[in-house]
């Protein structure tokens, strides 16, 4: 197990280094003054001078890189002049909203996709299976931001069931009412993100269950005379579910990306809408900071799911 953990870490660390190096190279090779690329276009002259000194911009490449990494290790991601706040504080204050949305969308999408996929495979081959496949394909083809807008149009504008955006009603209710209010505001963005995550899990589960239905152990279980229900749930489904765990790790990045666009549509006060504002304002330090922190988050989540996978399936860690 220790060897397995070490190996997974050996994958995560180069990724983190790569992210840092990429950021640094972008500022180093950016056209124009390097100090402005780090400080942002609307920084004050004093801050630009400070950056020039702090990041040793007159020194050769390797010294600059070292200074950059030291600053990063100290948690200094620069200063956002559009928000008049340090980038790191700004991102950290927005991160909980994003993580909440990502986890809700990912878990619901995975659960829903796995259940429907297993259901579809049970009815393979039939019109039910074809129909569900078609639905999954259409969902796969919907740009998530457009899906969000259509959802707002239907459920908030025409039916007036849910709020069109934001995270809280104003004034923010006290106590338990606050949680209910949050849940109420979460419904549409979560469903949007769920529908975005659904097809991957649907397709994977469906295909692996259909494959498992032809395995020898399923044939044997049937030959023994076990009921179809027992064969399907205990023998087939259990084995077919394992690949889904690795996919959770692989889809986290795409769910984060989906959350970015969803947040923009629903004015969800997370990192995604911050990224949108940053791009709009051309606040490059903020864009870079969001990229770094989000990528680090994804690396961390992937590492955690990898470790979990090794824990659940012993074959993986002895591989």
């Amino acid at each position: 197990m220790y060897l397995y953990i070490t190996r997974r870490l050996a994958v995560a660390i180069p990724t983190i280094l790569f992210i840092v190096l990429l950021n640094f190279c972008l500022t180093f090779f950016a056209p124009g003054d390097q100090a402005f690329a780090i400080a942002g276009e609307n920084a004050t002259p004093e801050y630009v001078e400070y950056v020039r000194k702090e990041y040793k911009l007159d020194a050769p490449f390797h010294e600059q890189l070292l200074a950059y990494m030291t600053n990063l290790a100290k948690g200094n991601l620069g200063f956002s002049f559009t928000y008049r706040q340090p980038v790191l504080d700004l991102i950290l204050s927005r991160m909980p909203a994003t993580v909440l949305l990502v986890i809700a969308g990912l878990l619901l999408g995975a659960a829903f996709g796995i259940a429907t996929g297993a259901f579809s495979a049970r009815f393979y081959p039939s019109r039910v299976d074809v129909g569900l496949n078609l639905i999954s394909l259409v969902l796969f083809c919907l740009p998530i931001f457009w899906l969000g807008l259509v959802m707002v149009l239907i459920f908030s504008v025409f039916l007036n069931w849910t709020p069109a955006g934001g995270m809280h009603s104003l004034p923010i209710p006290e106590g338990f009412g606050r949680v209910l209010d949050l849940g109420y505001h979460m419904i549409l963005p979560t469903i949007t993100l769920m529908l975005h995550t659904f097809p991957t899990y649907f397709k994977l589960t469906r295909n692996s269950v259909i494959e498992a239905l032809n395995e020898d152990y399923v044939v044997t279980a049937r030959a023994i005379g076990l009921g179809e229900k027992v064969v399907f749930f205990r023998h087939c489904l259990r084995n077919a579910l394992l690949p889904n765990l690795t996919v959770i790790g692989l889809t986290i990045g795409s769910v984060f990306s989906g959350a970015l666009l969803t947040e923009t549509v629903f004015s969800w006060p997370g990192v995604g809408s911050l990224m949108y504002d940053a791009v709009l304002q051309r606040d490059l330090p903020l864009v870079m900071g969001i990229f770094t922190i989000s990528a680090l988050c994804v690396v961390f989540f992937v590492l955690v799911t990898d470790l979990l996978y090794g824990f659940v399936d012993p074959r993986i860690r002895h591989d």
Partner: protein
Amino acid sequence: MTSSTVVNGLRKNVFGNTGVLLFAVFIFIAIFSDVLVPYSPERLVGIPDSPPSAQFLMGTDNLGRDVLSRVMDGTRYTLVLAIGATLVSLIIGVFVGGIAGYSGGWIDTVLSRLIEIFVTIPRLFLVILLSAFLGAHTWILMLVIGGTMWPINARLMRAQALTLRKRAFVNAAEVAGVGKPAILMRHILPNSAGPIIANAGLQIAYAILLEAGLSFLGLSDPTQISWGRMIQDGRAGFPYAWWQQLFPGLAIVFLLLAVHLLSETITRMHSVHDTQSE
């Protein structure tokens, strides 16, 4: 058994044909949009925010430009960008994967790590970062989008190269004294094309989605009409002027459906061909 053949036959014919037809329509529009558009896409031809009517089938935008003409004009940009990005991704992926699989050893280890790194980093964030820094011009977007999609091609190519390098004809070439780069170019690459080409359709679809997301965030070539950008611009009139967002969005959905159905058909024909030849 019969129901399965019926269902499969139905799927193959109806869905496959729909895909081919839809894609052909999009290609036709992309090529001839200059002639086909009812109005000039950049001209102010009607009252701003007028709903769909006989005169403006998809309504007008907030400046009074014809939405239908703009959607049609955007087809070419979307397709050119997506196909270009896919080509970039193919070239990078084939070389990285081919070199990794054929060389083996430490080169393979390093390149495989690089592939894993690119798989882990959230793509949309990376693409936003790069295009925000480098500027959102068509060429840069092509390189940036293609430059983040290649890992899947590299993986497919690496797997192919790993099996091919043990085959007799590769060994024969090695014994005959052909250099490694030549073997890679002349023997490994041409024989690995199958799965990579089969996957190219999905790559095009992915590039279309990425571009749509990027331009929705405002990162698109300002000289081009992009569907994602249209949807973002239409938000000024949301929810009143729903047609400004509905139709560009539908264009994306139908183009993606066409690409998916088409690539599924091609993959199926490919696998039928394979089983027959064996």
